[in-house]
């Protein structure tokens, strides 16, 4: 069975641009969460979506937005990119509830120049 998939693998952008990252959850999983991992730190929670609705949001500016589609895949959008947005963006999927295990994808490495 396929795990969580993310695209693209790597991305290079310049300041001020916008970016869209994509995630496909494990088949049967209805919840998708997004995390930002800066080098040398643990992942930081950005969003959680369940059944296409936002169920949680971390301490990130409004430049960050996301959505979940009817097939439970998800997109993370970041506008007006800053150098500090350079990080590994991780997507995790889970069945539904908060005690269901979250399984992570390989991440998208975003570099902002």
């Amino acid at each position, binding site marked *: 069975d396929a795990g*969580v998939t993310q695209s693209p693998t790597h991305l290079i952008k310049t300041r001020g641009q916008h970016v869209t990252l994509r995630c496909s959850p494990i088949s049967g999983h209805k*919840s998708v*969460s997004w*995390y930002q991992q800066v080098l040398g*730190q*643990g*992942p*930081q*929670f950005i969003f*959680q979506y*369940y059944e296409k609705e936002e*169920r*949680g949001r*971390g301490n990130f500016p409004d430049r960050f937005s996301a959505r979940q589609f009817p097939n439970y895949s998800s997109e993370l959008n970041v506008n007006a990119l800053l150098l500090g947005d350079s990080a590994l963006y*991780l997507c*995790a999927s*889970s069945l*539904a*509830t*908060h*005690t*269901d*295990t*979250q*399984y*992570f*994808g*390989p*991440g998208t490495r975003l570099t902002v120049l």
Partner: protein
Amino acid sequence: GESVGLHLPTLSVQEGDNSIINCAYSNSASDYFIWYKQESGKGPQFIIDIRSNMDKRQGQRVTVLLNKTVKHLSLQIAATQPGDSAVYFCAENPRSGGTSYGKLTFGQGTILTVHP
């Protein structure tokens, strides 16, 4: 505020030894805890989890212990192998009412190095 922290940022062991990685948490409302392993260039890989109504849970070569009195979590790896070398993160998931809420709060991570 909420925080999950690790006492030791690095741990070096010999192959075959047992490893213990520790983690402190501060949110008493957390009722679900997870250990992840992250290898270089990869996403976190689930190792084992434990709910707050348990003190101990065992998996294959791994054991997680939860001490709610002192808000402490540990991961024990038996007969550590070179393939266990990675960064290990503990994470907590606080309950938020009765709704689904999947916000994981991660610690800073411990680098485990296993020498052959």
